[in-house]
């Protein structure tokens, strides 16, 4: 084990970029699970599905990020449909919805994963773009442009969602649904329509997140399993539904993973997110910025 402050500084720098990326891939889950209480374990699988869609669209000559943006409305509709289905079959029936809802999303995740394996095989896929592969040298440090791009998109996405949820009418309605659904019903609003809209947004955002995943590195169908740990770690650590908290939690995870990667090596890295998740669940399940 080699230790030096130079290496540590590099690890932290890389961790910050990685952390913003983790925040961006988790922000959809922060809405769907954090605000709407949907046990959405299929979120990472949908995101990887988004990566493959971005791969196809980028194959037509489009920039991967643009491909993600183009896919957002499609995924929005997909999300609305999924929520509608979930609501009709589980939430409305009430009792014992917990176990079955979980089983439903778990099964959905596997169907998506195997669908991707059947469609694309188990090989890794990558996309081409001018900013992928090259890096920016500052002094002795080299920062890959792909991480910078992901960093930028992540910041924009987080900022946009934060503003949307706190400043616009619909955004506030989504927060209201999260806080007190019966009260909203008494005011004459339809909580199901608002939740449907919010779930659509969460799924739409995961298309862009998926595009970022394939920009940051090669994608394979079974990758969603690792991202279960990362996304849920960030959302729980953030405190359910807190957007700024998501950014902070993403940074914590990114920096810790990057430091572990440097000190102990890649074989220990997958345990970081899951370990952190267990610690948070054990000590402070309401998260850092919990409501």
């Amino acid at each position, binding site marked *: 084990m080699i230790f030096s402050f130079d290496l540590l500084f590099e690890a932290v720098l890389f961790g910050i970029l990685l952390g913003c990326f983790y925040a961006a891939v988790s922000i959809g889950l922060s809405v769907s699970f954090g605000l709407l209480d949907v046990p959405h374990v299929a979120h990472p699988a949908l995101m990887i599905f988004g990566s493959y869609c971005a791969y196809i669209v980028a194959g037509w000559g489009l920039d991967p990020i643009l491909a993600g943006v183009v896919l957002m409305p499609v995924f929005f509709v997909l999300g609305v449909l999924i929520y509608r289905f979930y609501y009709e079959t589980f939430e409305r029936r009430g009792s*014992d919805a917990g176990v079955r809802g979980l089983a439903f999303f778990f099964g959905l995740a596997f169907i998506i994963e195997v669908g991707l394996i059947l469609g694309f095989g188990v090989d890794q896929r990558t996309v081409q773009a001018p900013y992928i592969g090259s890096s920016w040298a500052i002094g002795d440090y080299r920062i890959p442009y792909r991480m910078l791009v992901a960093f930028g998109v992540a910041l924009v996405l987080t900022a946009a969602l934060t503003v949307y949820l706190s400043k616009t009418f619909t955004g506030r309605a989504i927060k209201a649904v999260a806080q007190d659904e019966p009260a909203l019903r008494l005011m004459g609003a339809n909580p199901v329509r608002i939740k449907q809209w919010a779930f659509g947004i969460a799924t739409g955002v995961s298309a862009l997140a998926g595009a970022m995943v394939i920009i940051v590195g090669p994608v394979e169908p079974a990758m969603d399993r690792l991202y279960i740990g990362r996304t849920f770690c960030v959302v729980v650590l953030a405190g359910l539904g807190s957007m700024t908290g998501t950014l902070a939690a993403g940074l914590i995870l990114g920096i810790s993973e990057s430091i572990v990667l440097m000190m102990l090596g890649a074989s220990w890295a997958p345990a970081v997110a899951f370990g952190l998740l267990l610690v948070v669940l054990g000590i402070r399940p309401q998260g850092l910025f919990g409501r």
Partner: protein
Amino acid sequence: MTYWISALVFLTAAFAAAISGINEYVFYAGYIVLTFVVLSTAWNILGGYAGYVNFGTGAFFGLGSYSAVVLFKALEAPLIVQIIAGAAIGAALGFAVGIMTLRLRGIFFAIATVAILFIMETLMVNWRYVGGATGLQLLRPEVMAPFGSYTRMLFVVMALLSVIAVSIARYIQVGWIGRGLRAIRDSEEAAECSGVPTLKLKLFACVISGALMGAAGAPMPMYLSFIEPASSFSLNWGVSALAMPMIGGTGHWIGPVIGALLLGSIQQIVTVTISNEINVLVVGVLLVLFVVLAPDGVVGLFRKWARRSSR
């Protein structure tokens, strides 16, 4: 009484088949189906009766396999010792998971079990003694007298284990423990207020469930003559162990058995004739279909049909 007679008949038939001249492949496939009977029955004790969804069946199963391998490599321990050790380690992990239920419910509990699964896998990947990420080849010991091959013997062992598992699940279901667990599933607060010792019961369910999963995992390395972390700790064990009770019906002990026999056999046929990926797809699709269309599984469908025909 009929239960014990049919259990005895089943065991005798399994034993008789194993020493007869039936094709080796039957036992090779049957072993896996019986493993699923144990796993889904074990899952149902916690997930079906008490309503705590465990995605991390692979953690218990894999840990059972690895404790068997460590004992075998260090002491050349016989199979029975390996299984007992696997059960003990599984029970210990179950106890730890049981303590988590103090604070975590629903999806939080489920996600925590996934976390345990991946942490266990990472630990084994980094443990050189058991072969790390590449795994370990194992040399099977000599097979005992009446059996023609090691696989046949393992088949009978797993048949015995599945009878033990189902008997335990049945005992729990019909007694006061089962009533307490069902009360926890319906409303934990109400159960606690009415004097149900919720923590004790949850710990009991976790320990039993974990022990059975660990025991089911212990003979696996000998069956494959090989062990590696990725398949031992796969999330696929979790989805199967969850899907089988859901498909069979979670309320009754026969549910997981039906689900495991049904889905396990389909999986074996699909794996042979089509591919391994399709078999996971079948599990996922059937799980979603049953959860949506027949929430009480095959047992529920059967009850509905019986009620309609009696009217």
